[in-house]
């Protein structure tokens, strides 16, 4: 039969200071030494973490009305445009957004030193942001221009809302061509000169709950150093991809949309990021607690880097052309060893997602739970699962 736990029971133990929490890294050796059954009886919660570039991120702001009032038609924050097609003094700043004066890739490879992600980091650092807005003037909102300086404290609401985060597995990117290429997977040297991957592997949230049994809408999470929530399944959520025997997808699969109050977050865990020749983004710290409801959940959280495989994809041809061709699969244990073999060649590897920071996040979340500062929430709705039939579609051209 094995053990059974409920969210309520775990939360009671948290409140009583009796909860047993370990990280997704720690649970691996525990299971190796003591076996699934014994560890499942002992451990109530396993914490996960990831800290990597997450392009589909951004924040909603309400700036408040100046006197006289203005309907903001265009807004710039430190020169970076924010989307204003919502309400009069609201805007959404995407982390990939760049200043209009940025040379982009006109001098290839462009540096993209400042974008929406850097604005968010500067706000969290308490820096003053140059704020500019123009409006066309209406009877109720007559003002046509405003230029001022604001801090995060001056803004009414600042809500981080990231439509796609915490990708469940991802590609290992390489370059088969004879020239260096500049991608969102970093600088890829010619002729299989290097291989880049981007996942915390055995520490990554959705790889520890491969079938989304506990991570769902309403799950309370560590987000950017503060507390956030899973709001929905993320964009490009693609749960029906092939999986290994352990249930772990063999490539990019599930994603989550997350939300939280930016004002309680920390620049340590939301970092403006630049990819040479590609663009700007935000590196996001995210951690999710996984309740050990039964032995199966414990087994999922004990997944090891050597049991998680990702596809090797050529970013000079197969990826940009969307051929779907892969050069093979490789485990995260192989990737983390520093070299892999592709087409008979030894290729050095490097991550883009920080494993040490993922470990730190899992430990912070563990401490929050042990100290009774963070309780677990039961999802109000599950994410579309492996039986949903959902398939990511390419854009049709007619």
């Amino acid at each position, binding site marked *: 039969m094995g053990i059974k736990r409920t969210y309520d029971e775990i939360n009671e133990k948290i409140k009583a200071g009796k909860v047993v929490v370990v990280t997704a890294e720690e649970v691996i050796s525990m299971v190796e030494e003591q076996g699934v059954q014994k560890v499942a009886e002992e451990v109530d919660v396993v914490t996960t973490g990831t800290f990597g570039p997450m392009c589909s991120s951004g924040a909603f702001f309400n700036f408040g009305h100046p006197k006289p009032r203005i309907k903001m038609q265009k807004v710039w924050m430190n020169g970076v445009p924010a989307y204003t097609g919502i309400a009069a003094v609201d805007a959404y700043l995407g982390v990939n957004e760049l200043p209009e004066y940025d040379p982009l890739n006109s001098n290839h490879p462009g540096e993209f030193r400042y974008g929406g992600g850097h604005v968010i980091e500067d706000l969290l650092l308490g820096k003053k942001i140059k704020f500019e807005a123009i409006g066309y003037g209406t009877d109720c909102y007559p003002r046509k221009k405003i230029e001022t300086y604001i801090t995060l404290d001056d803004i009414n609401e600042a809500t981080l809302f990231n439509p796609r985060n915490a990708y469940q597995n991802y590609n290992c990117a390489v370059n088969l061509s004879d020239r260096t290429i500049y991608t969102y997977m*970093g*600088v890829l040297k010619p002729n299989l000169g290097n*291989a880049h991957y981007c996942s915390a592997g055995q520490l990554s949230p959705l790889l520890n709950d491969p079938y989304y049994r506990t991570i769902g809408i309403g799950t309370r999470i560590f987000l950017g150093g503060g507390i956030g929530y899973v709001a929905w399944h993320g964009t490009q959520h693609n749960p029906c991809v092939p999986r290994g025997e352990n249930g772990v997808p063999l490539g990019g699969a599930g994603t989550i949309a997350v939300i939280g109050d930016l004002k309680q977050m920390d620049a340590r865990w939301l970092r403006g*990021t*630049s990819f040479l020749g590609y663009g700007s983004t935000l*590196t996001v710290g995210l951690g999710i607690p996984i309740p050990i409801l039964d032995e199966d959940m414990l087994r999922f959280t004990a997944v090891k880097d050597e049991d998680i495989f990702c596809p090797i994809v050529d970013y000079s041809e197969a990826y940009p052309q969307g051929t779907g061709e892969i050069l093979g699969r490789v485990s995260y244990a192989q990737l983390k*060893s520093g070299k892999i073999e592709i087409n008979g060649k030894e290729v050095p590897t490097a*991550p*883009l997602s920080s494993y040490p920071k993922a470990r730190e996040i899992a430990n912070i979340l563990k401490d929050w739970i042990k100290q009774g500062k963070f309780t677990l929430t039961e999802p109000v709705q599950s994410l579309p699962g492996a039986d949903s039939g959902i398939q990511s579609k390419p854009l049709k051209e007619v």
Partner: protein
Amino acid sequence: MTKRIVLRFPSQIVDKPLLYHLVKDFGLMVNVLKANVNPRKEGFMVMELSGETSSYDQGIDFLKKQGVTVEKLAEDIVRDVDRCTHCGHCTSLCPVGALYIIRPSMEVAFDEEKCIVCGLCLKACPVKAIELNFNGR
């Protein structure tokens, strides 16, 4: 001839138009690479100076007579450990293994002795945690 040099000048002469004289009086071509010159503070400037050898020498003499210290340019790479996220991107680009990953912790480390200041890591670092340092500045 063309040389990359570092100038340091005391606060008393920061208001003097030194570059003007290098160009106007000695016919030298000046390309400023880095400068930190503030009123009433010591000045620091890294430049590429080009011209005929005799003019170059006269220009350097002029600078020294004004109280400027002229040094050969020495560059080194500096890694801001607090800013670094240990993502590891730089490690696969570094041609000499000066930037590398410590296993199994997966933390990024930097061996200054091995660094050849090729600068590949500078532009590639996603969080700009690596800087080029001129003569310790």
